[in-house]
């Protein structure tokens, strides 16, 4: 193989041990940025500790907006979002981050990185305000550099000039690894990952899958959005199918098939009531 060893596409994972609900979403309605209608129309589900819940669907059925609503990038019209029992529906993004939410965004260039910042500056994008990295408003440059170097080593982020590399000059896979390092190292209660492997090479995909499963095995809740059916089937413990802004079915990946999911994703079938 091109990575010099066998790549496993099927992810090894232990059976999941679910705990208490971490993320609870009730009747969430989120407006769309491109048209006047709501993109998410009354979605309810929860994500419990120690499981990977995957939202599957054909692109453009509201999954992006659902994540915008949950992470605070877009203000929901109605509904409630609770993180560990705390209402965060209208909380600012920084508050959600403090409350234990990490977000691997869909568009790593638009949201995930400040492309013209160095890798080190990007590594602390969510944490630069913490006492660890600043003192009375002055950034502790050495602490930032050390932290970035640790993440680079630990998560195998490769770049031309280490922490001083401009993020724009890095390869897509390494940019994504940097984002994942930053978000996972925050030790979140809930990890929201949107198409975390889009456009990456097989080595990076395998690595990122392992990281996501490792988070789940640590007892974290993971909400995954993916357009790759293979990824959906391999990674998730529970699959929610979204169609035209509504959740039309909930499946156990062990008991369903790609074909069945496809029918729901295309809107040909709909479960009477989601069992969440």
């Amino acid at each position, binding site marked *: 193989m091109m990575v010099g060893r066998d790549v496993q596409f099927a992810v090894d994972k232990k059976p999941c041990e679910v705990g208490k609900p971490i993320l609870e979403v009730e009747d969430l309605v989120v407006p769309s940025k491109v048209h006047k209608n709501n993109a998410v129309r009354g979605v309810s589900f929860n994500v419990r500790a120690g499981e990977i819940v995957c939202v599957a669907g054909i692109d453009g059925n509201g999954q992006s907006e659902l994540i915008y609503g949950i992470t605070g990038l877009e203000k929901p019209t109605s509904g409630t979002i609770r993180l560990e029992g705390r209402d965060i529906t209208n909380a600012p*993004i920084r*508050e959600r981050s403090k409350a234990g939410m990490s977000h691997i965004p869909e568009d790593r260039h638009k*949201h995930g990185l*400040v492309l013209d*910042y160095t890798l080190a500056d990007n590594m602390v994008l969510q944490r630069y305000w913490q006492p660890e990295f600043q003192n009375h*408003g002055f950034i502790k440059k050495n602490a930032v550099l050390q932290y970035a170097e640790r993440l680079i080593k630990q998560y195998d982020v*490769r770049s031309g000039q280490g922490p001083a590399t401009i993020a724009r000059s*890095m390869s897509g*896979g*390494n940019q994504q690894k940097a984002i994942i390092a930053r978000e996972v190292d925050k030790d979140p209660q809930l990890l929201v990952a949107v198409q975390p492997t889009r456009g990456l090479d097989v080595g990076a995909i395998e690595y990122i899958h392992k990281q996501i499963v490792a988070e789940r095995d640590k007892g974290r809740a993971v909400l995954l959005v993916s357009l790759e059916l293979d990824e959906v089937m391999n990674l998730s413990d529970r699959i929610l199918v979204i169609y035209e802004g509504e959740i039309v079915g909930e499946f156990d990946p062990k008991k369903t098939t790609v074909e069945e999911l496809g029918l729901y994703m295309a809107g040909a079938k709909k479960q009477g009531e989601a069992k969440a």
Partner: protein
Amino acid sequence: MSKQNKQPLLQRPAVVGVLASLLSIVVGLVLGFVLLVLLNPGAAVGGMRAMLATGFSNMDKLGKVLYQAAPLMMCGLSVGFAFKTGLFNIGASGQYTMGAFFSLLCAIQFQMPWYVCLLAGAVGGAIWGIFPGLFKAYFNVNEVITAIMFNWIGMYLVNLLLANMPNMLASGWGASNSDRTAALNVANPGAILPRGPFAALFGNSSWINISIVITIIFAILVWVILQKTTFGYELKACGLSRDAAQYAGINSKRNIVLSMVISGALSGIGGGIYYLAGTGQYVLEKSILGMGFNGIPVALLASSNPIGTIFASLFISYIQVGGAAMQPAYSSETIDIVIAVIIYLAAFALLMRGIITKAVSGHKGKEGAAK
């Protein structure tokens, strides 16, 4: 991240930046010379020599260079600071006018000491900066449009106010002309900027005062804010990528407003510092003061770097003083054209930077990044 010296000298961004600025200045001077030859071949060499040598010819002229550089530097800092946040503060002129007005108001009307006047100038500029900031942040109105309108509003407002304040005008203090503010040495000598301990060094030139020191301190302060603080980190993040800043939980609206306020305050201090020198009186103008606009090429020449702004403003002030010395051989309008050509080309620093980077990397061949 200058700690690593592994990169070859010519590939370091700082070196390339300085080199690019110097190269564009040289190209500008060459073109300016060509223009001089075309306009008046006989006087071209003498004219060029006057432009290049006058600033250093005697201490009085050097004092004038510093005197003019100070407000220019503040405007350059102002524009550069806004650039870093992704904003184009073309309203430096209006903020400068407002700063001048607030400073003179405190100086003449309220008889305050110079430091209070300077502070008032900052407040005046900040007030004029906050409006474009608010409109940009909350209504997504392009700051260029608002700022240009506020340039005119500011100018006419100041004219209107001054015309209706007899105490502010020179005519209110014994002089005959009513088209300008009172001379500070008559109205309130306490508001004139101190000449500083180094005035003797410049042969007690009437131009010299502490303004250049104040502005250099501000340049360093702005550099520290942008490079060393979390606030600067946030501002730059907003400027480079508003989406990523939002994702990181940075309040970009607040930062846009704050950035315009600080930018306005810097211009305002520039206005204050110029008129508190005591040598100039604010004349009721019919056109917008050029100083704020001159801040734009200063910022561009310095690639928005606050430390670079110090040198850029000194350079532009230098050729302005030099240009004035070309007077008999060339008319003042043609001198302005030559200066404009030099400044215009000097502002090509960004283009030059690209050319240099390309030339250097073409030489070395690109090293493949990992994976």
